[in-house]
């Protein structure tokens, strides 16, 4: 199908437009509303997300599953893949907004900017998930990055937050600069910026000897730096623990889920569409490269998580490790692998956000992010402790929690390709990960504290927590999620 022109594309672009509109609405209403304590802007943002969700579903109904729609002269594309990620990102953003409502770290006077930025970053992520042009890829990535830098440094009175922002932007700028250089090389090889054409072009020039494999290797490695930093894979992961620790907790949660998911969306689209051609795949052993990266990522993440005392930082490393698990599914870009990544992202969304929500709650009540602060939580706040235990064990991958099923599909995909060693490393890693997750559980359940007065949470908090707990328990049992890869065809 021919790419649609600008005006024709607008209807299909409505979710993104709505986000921007509501971001503007947030800023405007922030100027209007005088009461700083009011959370009206947060609700407006939520409404915006809701509208966007409706729009996504409506646009989704336009999609003929076999024929994705190219918009804006092929700049972006609307397909099941994009829709899936948009919904995922939308949920993550909504959760982040809800967390932010509970968080006590955030400066009440900057609410308008905060929520507007959240909507803007979501907008950028939507584009990341649907870009099919090198320029769009870069711009959307930069949109997300720049907004993320600001959000990470949002706590202007906190040195840690500023430091996080500083590290983030330095790291991000270098990584995206490197990526841009790689993109330019790709541009030079293919003679086009259109991702759909790049693969065939590159394959052709490779085939004709017009370019050497080294050229392709360097270009893609440079690009990998940009994407790898988004999904925090080794060796591009080093920013994430510091940034996660310094950033406000809701933002950490957001980065660890949404940013990573968007990174994966980009990664998958870029590699699957742009470099899914067997000729290119064969030119260099991409599978091996990604497998090694994946193995290193999860190992480093898990090992480094072991000695952590700060739960936020621990979860940062944990999310690095989970990035590694997810990468396993991407190794050979098989349908099973993609399905596994989709499934795992859903699961990861719930369990990781849930865990961060508990971190928010504990930080509010106990005033600390350290593991010691979780002592005796089982008696002080039984439901919260129980929920946390569920999230953590799900992150470990213990049946019957959803995390297990997520890991199962991943390992299944990996072993399906005969990469037993990678599966084995992955599984050993999940054994190691048990150790540090269990440390938190141990603190909550097996240790006690002198301070025994219980925390009381409003029902809304418990309800929100349940929203994460229930899927974490149930997703694995619902067959529908396993067939995502059939529904989301990525072309």
């Amino acid at each position, binding site marked *: 199908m021919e790419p649609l022109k600008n005006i024709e594309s607008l209807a299909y672009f409505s979710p993104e437009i709505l986000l921007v509109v509501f971001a503007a609405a947030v800023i405007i209403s922030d100027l209007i509303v005088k009461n700083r304590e009011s959370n009206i802007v947060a609700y407006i943002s939520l409404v915006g997300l809701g509208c966007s969700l409706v729009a996504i579903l409506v646009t989704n109904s336009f999609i003929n599953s076999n024929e994705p729609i190219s918009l804006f002269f092929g700049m972006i594309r609307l397909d099941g893949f994009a829709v899936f990620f948009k919904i995922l990102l939308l949920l993550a953003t909504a959760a982040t907004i809800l967390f932010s409502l509970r968080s006590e770290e955030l400066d009440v006077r900057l609410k308008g900017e905060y929520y507007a930025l959240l909507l803007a970053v979501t907008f950028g992520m939507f584009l990341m998930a649907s870009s099919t042009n090198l320029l769009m890829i870069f711009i959307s990535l930069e949109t997300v990055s720049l907004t993320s830098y600001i959000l990470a*440094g949002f706590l202007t009175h906190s040195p840690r937050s500023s430091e996080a922002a500083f590290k983030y932007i330095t790291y991000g700028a270098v990584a995206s*600069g490197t990526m841009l250089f790689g993109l330019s090389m790709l541009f030079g090889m293919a003679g086009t910026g259109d991702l759909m*054409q790049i693969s065939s072009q590159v394959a052709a020039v490779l085939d004709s000897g017009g370019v050497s494999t080294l050229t392709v290797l360097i270009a893609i490695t440079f690009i990998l730096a940009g994407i790898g930093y988004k999904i925090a894979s080794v060796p591009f992961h080093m920013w994430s623990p510091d940034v996660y620790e310094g950033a406000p907790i809701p933002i950490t949660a957001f980065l660890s889920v949404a940013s990573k998911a968007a990174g994966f969306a980009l990664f998958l689209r870029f590699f699957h569409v742009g470099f899914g051609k067997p000729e290119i795949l064969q030119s260099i052993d991409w599978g091996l490269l990604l497998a090694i990266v994946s193995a290193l990522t999860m190992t480093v993440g898990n090992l480094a998580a072991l000695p952590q005392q700060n739960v936020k930082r621990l979860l940062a490393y944990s999310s690095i490790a989970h990035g590694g698990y997810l990468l396993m599914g991407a190794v050979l870009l098989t349908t099973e692998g993609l399905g596994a990544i989709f499934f795992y992202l859903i699961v990861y969304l719930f369990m990781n956000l849930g865990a961060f929500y508990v971190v928010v709650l504990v930080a509010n009540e106990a005033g600390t992010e350290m593991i010691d602060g979780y002592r005796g939580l089982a008696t002080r706040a039984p439901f919260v402790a129980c929920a946390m235990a569920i999230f953590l064990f799900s992150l470990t991958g213990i049946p019957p929690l959803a995390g297990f099923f997520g890991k199962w599909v991943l390992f299944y995909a990996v072993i399906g390709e005969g990469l037993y060693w990678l599966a084995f490393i992955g599984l050993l890693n999940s054994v190691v990960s048990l150790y540090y997750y269990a440390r938190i559980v141990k603190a909550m359940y097996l240790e006690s504290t002198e301070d025994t007065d219980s925390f009381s949470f409003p029902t809304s908090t418990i309800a929100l927590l349940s929203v994460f707990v229930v899927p974490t328990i149930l997703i694995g049992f619902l067959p529908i999620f396993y067939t995502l890869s059939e529904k989301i065809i990525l072309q």
Partner: protein
Amino acid sequence: MSLQHYLVISSILFSLGIFAVLTRKNAISILMGIELILNSCNLNFVAFSRFITPAESIVGSEVFRFDGQIIAIFGIVLAAAEAAVFLAIILAIYREFGSIRPDEVDTLKG
């Protein structure tokens, strides 16, 4: 003035940018390094679009000659935005830490 001339220049700029980023002990110098990198990328784009035979395109190969330039324009804009935010963050860092030496901003680690 073949394509390779430009490519060599941009490669040198890129490497120098990397060098700056890695070794300079001032956050602003690092920013300058980043600007060098971005410039090298822009130069690449423009050079490629000028010389390379374009792929078959629905919008015509003529557009390709402009593609690089427009990408470079966007690159400049993004660089500007990034620089603005970067400098804002440097200011914040300076406020909190009293220094913009990157290795002194290391409370988060381990």
